[in-house]
C-alpha cells in the first residue's frame, strides 16, 4: 500500500515543488531495487520487523528547537525502510534527535515523526531514523473538529 510510485497527482505536484538535496553514494546503484524484509543484525533488538521501502517521500520541516531556525520548507527525501513504529530515510541535510517533522509517504498520508538518530553516509547524504509520533496531522485535525 505504501510502496511503488503509484502516487496521486497532488503528491506529484508536491514532489515537483520540493527540492531533493540527497546525493546517493555512487556505489548505491541498486538503492531503489531492494524489497522485502530487512535482515536484522544480531545486535539489534527491534520491536517490529522492518520492510524495505525504497521510494520518495516529502519531508516538511517544523520548528522544534528555539536555537535552530527551521523555516517551513519541504524537501523530497528517499525512504529506506519502515516498520510499525518508525521509518528511516535519506536526506541531504543533518537532522537532530528529538526534532519533530511531518513526513508524507507514498500513500499520500502525512505522518508526524520524531528524529531518533542521524548518521552521515556521504556528502549531502544523511540517514535519518525516526519514530512515528502520534496521529497524522489530518487525523488529529478531524478528531479535534478542526476545519
Amino acid at each position, binding site marked *: 500500500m505504501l510502496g511503488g510510485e503509484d502516487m496521486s497527482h497532488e503528491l506529484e505536484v508536491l514532489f515537483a515543488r520540493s527540492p531533493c538535496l540527497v546525493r546517493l553514494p555512487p556505489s548505491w546503484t541498486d538503492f531503489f531495487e531492494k524489497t522485502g524484509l530487512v535482515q536484522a543484525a544480531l545486535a539489534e533488538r527491534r520491536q517490529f520487523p522492518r520492510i524495505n521501502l525504497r521510494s520518495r517521500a516529502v519531508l516538511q520541516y517544523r520548528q522544534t528547537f528555539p536555537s535552530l531556525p527551521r523555516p517551513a520548507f519541504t524537501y523530497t527525501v528517499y525512504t529506506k525502510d519502515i516498520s510499525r513504529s518508525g521509518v528511516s530515510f535519506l536526506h541531504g541535510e543533518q537532522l537532530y*534527535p528529538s526534532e519533530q517533522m511531518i513526513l508524507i509517504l507514498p500513500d499520500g498520508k502525512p505522518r508526524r515523526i520524531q528524529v531518533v538518530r542521524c548518521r552521515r553516509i556521504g556528502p549531502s547524504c544523511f540517514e535519518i531514523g525516526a519514530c512515528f509520533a502520534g496521529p497524522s496531522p489530518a487525523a488529529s485535525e478531524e478528531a479535534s473538529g478542526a476545519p
Partner: protein
Amino acid sequence: MSGQVIADPNRACAGLVAIAVETLLPRDALDFDLYLWPSADSPPVLYREANYPLDETDLDRLLSQGVQTLYIPAAKCRAYQQYLRKVVLRTRRLRPTQRFSLLKKANRGVFESAFRSGVPGRMMEFAEEFGRQLWEVVCDRDMVLAHLFAVMDHDYLTYTHLTNVCAYSVALAHWLGVNRPGEIGAIAAGALLHDYGKRHMPPAILNKTDRLTPSEREIIRGHVVAGFTTFCTQENIHWGQLMMIYQHHERINGRGYPVGLVGEEIHPWAKICAIADVFDALTSARPYRPPDPLEDVLEYLQQRAGSDFDPEMVRCWVAKICPTN
C-alpha cells in the same frame, strides 16, 4: 603527620583530584588523605592523613590563607563523593538555598584549581588574566550551576572533568582569537555542560576498571545524545553550546560519533571542546588508570591533528601549553 613532600611529583600531581575546603566539616574523620598543592611549580604536600579530623581552627586557617582547595587521590573519589552526599548534597541540615550557595562557593575553588592543575606554559598567565572574570560569568548562570551540581552528585570525577574542560576550552578559544566576553562565557557554560549526558550513565560503567564491553561502550556513546536531548528545547541555550554537547566526539575525518561528520560540518566550539576533552581525559588520573605524561598527550594530539582534530587548533594548543615544543 603533615608536611611530607611526595617523592614523585609528576606522577603524584596528576594523580590528585581537587576538592573544596568549604565542603569539609570539622571533627569528621575522613576516609582519605588530604594534600595541599599551592602551585603547579611545586609538588603537592601531604596536609592531613586519613582519619585525622580537621577542627574549626584548621579550616579557618586554610580559608584565611586563601586555600580554597585541597587534593585527594583519584582512587578515593568514591569515598569523598559519599562524604559529600552525606554532609552537603543530600543532608536535611541545609535548606536548598543554603546548599546551592555553599556549592557555589565550593565550586569556585575547584574551578580555579582547574587553571593550575599542573599544566605548564601559558595556562597560568591565562588563569591570572581571565580566571576571576570567567568565574563571575559562569557564576551568574544558575541553570548551568544547578546542572553541574547534579553531575557532582552523580559522579565526582565527571564533575571535575567538566570544570577542567571548561578551563581548557576557554583558554584555547581565547588563544584562537575569541575575545568577546559574551562568547567566552557561552563557551565556558557549554563546556561545563558538554558531558551532562553522563548523568544518565551508571557510575559503575563510567568508572569501570576493566575494558568496556561493546554494549557498555554503546551506552557510554549515548551520553552525547542524552545530553543534547536534555537541553535542545530550552530557550536560553546557544546553538554552539548544544553542538559542544552533541558533537564533541565527532572527528574531522568522519570517524567520530554520533553522526560521523567531517571537517567544517563540525561546529568550531565543538572542535575546541573535543581537544579540551581529550587533553583532560588523558592528563587526569582515574581510578582505573594513571595519567599520561604531558609530552605523550601533546604528541597524541599532534599525531591526530588533521585526522581527528582541527590542525590549527592543535598547533595553537601545543604552542601555548608547551612553548618550546
